[in-house]
């Protein structure tokens, strides 16, 4: 949890010996349709779904910090600030109704959201994002931290920059991009997938829908795709200066190896699968042979 480590170090340096600890614990009833909006500088935010139509916010902080929890229109907002001096890292535990949409953002913030069944947005500069559950639009973005999504459905837009993205057990539409990280996708049932990275690898284990569109593109990394023998897809390969290989027989066009740009059809060819690397290796495998 890089965001939390940084926040704790920062807090220690800035506050050692000058502030006392205080507890914040408040519960607010919320009508359906209310969303949670959290904006913090540093620390950790853990949001868990519970079976009540109310929200509980707990935090341990310095007495010099001020926590503000209020209702603003259709939103419950959580903010914090230091009354004097530099801002501190604060850890929050927040319980929300499962139906509540959650939006959390911060600079040095680790974010964990568990069990909700609504839209989720989480964004941080330095910190990990881990979301389990969620349905609808899921936007998770970290510049320096890992983005992990589990057991979710809907439309996911995931972005990291310096770290990886992992998705396990997702149904819906998926967009994932990073610069230097790798993207690992497991147990995916999606009709539309677009994955891009520049310096990382891409690996896929999942079902290809007959009418789906899938695009995996990396610059220097590899693309590892497991393809069931019953898949119906037109596969478009562009390897630029890279390499293509398949662990099962595929008939390639003449001159394919020279041009490194070719297509072939599996089954009826109804789905579209675009695989692209500039300098890496594109590997096709059967599921049982896929790299774990």
């Amino acid at each position: 949890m890089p965001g939390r480590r940084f926040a704790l170090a920062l807090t220690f340096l800035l506050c050692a010996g000058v502030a006392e600890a205080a507890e914040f614990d408040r519960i607010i009833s919320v009508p359906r349709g209310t969303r949670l909006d959290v904006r913090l500088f540093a620390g950790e935010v853990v949001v868990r779904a519970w079976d009540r139509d109310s929200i509980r916010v707990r935090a341990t902080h310095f007495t010099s910090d001020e926590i503000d929890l209020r209702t603003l229109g259709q939103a419950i907002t959580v903010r914090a600030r230091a009354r004097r001096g530099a801002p501190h890292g604060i850890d929050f535990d927040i319980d929300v109704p499962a139906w509540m949409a959650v939006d959390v953002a911060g600079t040095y913030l680790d974010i964990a959201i568990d069990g909700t069944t609504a839209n989720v947005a989480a964004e941080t500069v330095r910190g990990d994002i881990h979301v389990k559950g969620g349905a609808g639009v899921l936007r998770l973005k970290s510049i320096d931290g890992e983005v992990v999504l589990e057991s979710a459905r809907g439309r996911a837009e995931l972005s990291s920059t310096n770290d990886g993205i992992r998705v396990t057990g997702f149904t819906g539409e998926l967009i994932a991009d990073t610069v230097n990280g790798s993207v690992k996708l497991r147990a995916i049932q999606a009709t539309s997938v677009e994955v891009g990275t520049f310096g990382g690898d891409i690996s896929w284990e999942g079902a290809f829908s007959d009418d789906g569109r899938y695009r995996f593109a990396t610059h220097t990394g590899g693309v590892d795709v497991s393809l069931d023998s019953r898949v119906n897809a037109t596969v478009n390969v562009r390897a630029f200066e890279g390499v293509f290989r398949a662990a099962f027989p595929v008939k390639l066009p003449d001159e394919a190896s020279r041009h490194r740009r070719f297509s072939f059809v599996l089954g009826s060819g109804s789905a579209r699968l675009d695989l692209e690397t500039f300098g890496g290796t594109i590997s096709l495998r059967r599921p049982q042979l896929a790299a774990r």
Partner: protein
Amino acid sequence: MNREDTRVEGGCREDPWVDRLSEYLDGDLPARERLEIEAHLAGCAACTAVLRELRDVVARADRMRLDSPPTRDLWPGVSVRLRRPLRLAPWPLSGASPLRWAVPRLAAAAVLVACCAALVWVVGERLRPASTAPPVASAPVVAPAPPVPADREYETTVAELRRVVHARLTLDPHVVEVLEKNLAALDLAMSDYQDALSRQPGDAQLRSRLIGARDRKLELLRRAVALTTEGGN
């Protein structure tokens, strides 16, 4: 080899040649295929039309040099908004969010990106073949070869955004280092694409990748600016 469920086609299953036009235009086809496609073009109006449009795009792209000066100077507007005094600080309890604060400053940069994206879309729509061929197979040929935004304007915007991020992250050189590392990775990718484009100037896919990398770099800096904060706390 399972030859029953795998077969090779040129891409578009209705017209196997349409997917090879880009390679034909690039001069990438072997002599035999080149002769075959020329014979096909003599009798196929649809492919001839697509080839004509591809040639137009390449010609337009060649006219729009990467180092061409901007047709309109947008920088003063960007510069004024970006040069406000900066202080490292978290977000305030009340008032507009920093994301909202960042919007005016980045408006001009966003306009650039939006214009570029719109151009990509418009050109792409124009080049989409009217046939019933599945879009699956047609993309490599019909992908637009959009112009690259004027370098000077782009680089100035990137430099200013970079300066803002550095100013706001003085307490955390690690994040600055991370940003620079990733910007360097994007620069490397762009350099590779430009190098490849110099050998294959008509390659729409390469050009699209180049623009994608440039957009990603700008977007990374914009996000860093939006997520780090300014003003009091």
